[in-house]
């Protein structure tokens, strides 16, 4: 009678040829898993950090630059309307330009200084800012000279000339201060759009961290299936734990998608605030233009009586209708700006991303350790060859 010794708990000694293949497979599997783990760490951490940094920059520089240009524009429109209204006699003789003109002009200046600090639209925007600064000096100089001329004589033609000059400096299509600010706002907004759609925020960047995670996840599942088949082990606890931890790392990295989505929504809010401000500014500007029209008619007479010449006659004929709505103060505009900044801050998720940022490297290190642990015991079984 022949007895066959069998074992159900100890692996049978492998045949000489198959032993080296299995050990080699295990070594290669471990190497691939560890390489992919390194890729997951590098790519996920890079994209996570890059998105966080981009959203932070958008919220602290680019979006504020857009808002500050809009604030400067609104302030200038209010200053101009206040000045033109104050030139309606007898106001200028009694009270001069008034406090609102001075304070709004100062506000505009401050806003433009902040735009220069936060400019994200490059050299062309810097040059445009320089142009606006120079034109603003010319504008305020003309207003000051107009006041000096009008105080003794409300029909002083030199005062009319300076006032008309100032208005054209501000309102001239294509070349005026407001037109320059519109171009500047568009440039800063375009810079924000680029920031939120390129680099770390782009689709290739998304693939850069998703692909290694999917690859590692797939290979971990494949490894567990292989071990179960080859070594009749139902569950490799270490590799299972590595798989779960990988999913947590992926969840952490995916918070960058939430951040991106919130930043895009904040940009949408910025556009709504911008649209509202433009409409408000147009209403205020119309008030100022009509006040200027009144001053010109008093100074020169009606167009049919000769008036102030063809350019002024065309201006008077083209005055927009008055909306009748009282211009609102700057309060609601400031609230809109605060809302945009708050939304960008929420998109940054600073409170949790700071902590989560540590989890990716720590999690990846733990996944690597678990992979090493999960395969080492199998590799040890092939450490000593039968002689």
């Amino acid at each position, binding site marked *: 009678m022949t007895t066959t010794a069998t074992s159900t708990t100890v692996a049978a000694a492998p045949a000489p040829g198959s032993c080296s293949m299995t050990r080699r497979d295990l070594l*290669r599997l471990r190497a691939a898993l560890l390489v992919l783990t390194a890729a997951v760490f590098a790519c996920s951490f890079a994209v996570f950090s890059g998105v966080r940094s981009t959203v932070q920059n958008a919220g602290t520089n680019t979006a504020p630059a857009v808002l500050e240009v809009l604030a400067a524009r609104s302030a200038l429109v209010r200053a101009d309307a206040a000045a033109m209204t104050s030139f309606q006699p007898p106001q200028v003789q009694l009270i001069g330009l008034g406090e609102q003109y001075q304070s709004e002009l100062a506000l505009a200046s401050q806003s433009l200084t902040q735009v220069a600090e936060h400019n994200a639209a490059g050299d062309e925007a810097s040059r445009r800012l320089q*142009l606006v600064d*120079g034109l603003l000096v010319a504008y305020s100089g003309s207003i000051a000279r107009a006041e000096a001329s009008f105080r003794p004589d409300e029909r002083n033609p030199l005062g009319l000339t300076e006032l008309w000059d*100032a208005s054209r400096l501000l309102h001239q299509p294509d070349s005026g201060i407001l037109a320059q600010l519109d171009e500047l706002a568009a440039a800063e907004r375009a810079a924000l759009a680029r920031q939120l759609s390129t680099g770390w925020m*782009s689709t290739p960047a998304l693939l850069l961290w998703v692909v290694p995670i999917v*690859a590692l996840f797939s290979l971990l599942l494949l490894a567990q299936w292989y071990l179960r088949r080859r070594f009749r082990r139902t569950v490799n606890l270490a590799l299972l734990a590595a798989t779960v931890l990988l999913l947590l790392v992926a969840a952490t990295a995916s918070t960058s998608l939430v951040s991106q989505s919130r930043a895009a929504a904040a940009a949408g809010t910025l556009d709504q605030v911008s649209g509202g401000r433009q409409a408000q500014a147009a209403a205020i500007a119309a008030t100022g233009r009509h006040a200027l029209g009144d001053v010109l008619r008093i100074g*020169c007479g009606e167009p049919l009586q000769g008036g102030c010449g*063809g350019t002024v006659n065309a201006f008077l004929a083209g005055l927009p209708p008055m909306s009748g709505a009282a211009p609102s103060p700057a309060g609601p505009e400031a609230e809109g700006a605060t809302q945009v900044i708050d939304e960008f801050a929420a998109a940054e998720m600073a409170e949790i991303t700071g902590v989560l940022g540590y989890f990716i490297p720590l999690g990846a290190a733990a996944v690597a350790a678990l992979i090493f642990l999960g395969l080492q015991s199998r590799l040890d079984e092939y450490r000593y060859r039968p002689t």
Partner: protein
Amino acid sequence: MTSRLRSLAAGLLAALLLAAVGFGTGACAATDATTSLTVLGPWTGDEQTAFEEVLRRFTAETDINVIYTGTRALSQVLRSDVQEGQPPDIAVLPSPGELASYVRSEDVQPVDEIFGELPEGSYSEQWLQLLRLGTDKLYAVTVKADLKSLIWYDRTELSVPPRSWEELMILTDGIRARGQAPWCIGMNAPPGSGFPGTDWIEDILLHQSGPDVYQRWAAGTVAWTSPEVKQAWSTWAQVVATPGSVQGGASAALLTDFGDARRPMFDPAPGCSLEHQASFAMAGFRSITRDGANLSPGEDFDFFEFPTFGTTPGGTTLSEVSADLAAMFRPSEQARQLMSYLAGQRGQGVWPSLGTAFSANKQVLAQGVYTDPVSIRIAQTLTTAETLCFDASDLMPARMSSAFYRAVLAHVADPTQLDAVLSDLELVRDDIRPAERLDVPCGR
């Protein structure tokens, strides 16, 4: 297992590489930089398009890439770039006075050798003298030039233009007698309102008292209260202050845009008949329509030269000019090639061939790029006049020219205050240091 692993690894590696390349390409595109010449200039809009055509043709000939930046804040931008040690390779300035300040601070390179390489006689001696900016070297190339000292009129309304100031006054008296205003005047041009009036005063002084007095006055060594200067202002008052000279009076003259002033000339009942304006006015005339068609130079509109006073020369022998001057801030072989191209016949001929500019280069005139008799006459005077003088306000320090502009407006508003206006100008002149003054001889 092994082959399955390999396939899986290969596929995932490919996907990872694609993502990395896509990400890297975007990053690299943002930082790509090529070596190019940088040119800073004052032109934007249509003028920028025209100048970029000049540069495009240079690039096609030489393979040297040129990046042009146009800004209306040229003075501020160039000043800060130079102060930061980052000037453009070449800058184009509309003011010889401003360029002269950079010559004095040795920020600009002389270009004598470039002119030496041009065919003999490309530029008149008058232009070469102007381009020396009061020094013994050449520092600039005229990208385009304009002739001043012109009076435009409706060809269908005037058959024999006046030649002397007296004849001009008789003509305008006759127009007023018919109940029409003779002069198209618009001073408004923010932030340089008043410049049309300064052009008037300069032309009157130049033709009334001669280029020597004109040059010394531009250099700041003739008082604003001197008899010659006061006479020029008083002479201008015959134009602008005589009742009925300008439709709508002083207010209309002050508030009308300089580009709108000529339009009433072609109304069915003309609102004015004559306009004193530089050759760049041609573009404005061409844009006006009459009977549904654009005005034609030589048939609908024409010019006559600024009239003479007594025995002082005029006509095509004496004229005021302005020019956009290109200067080299960073010397290099490529920059010299561009300057040479801009000075030469091919570079000078591009913009005039588009119909909106004039060249000081004689070979461009011979090239036949000007296609109408008015443009040909302008180019002939530009290139062959016996005496050419830069616009005086372009040579003055900035605060002197600003005061000049405002003084012109004040004079139109109230011609009875001339003495006070001139005294105020004299106070500004007194405050200017000799080192700020620029003495650029007329080209003769």
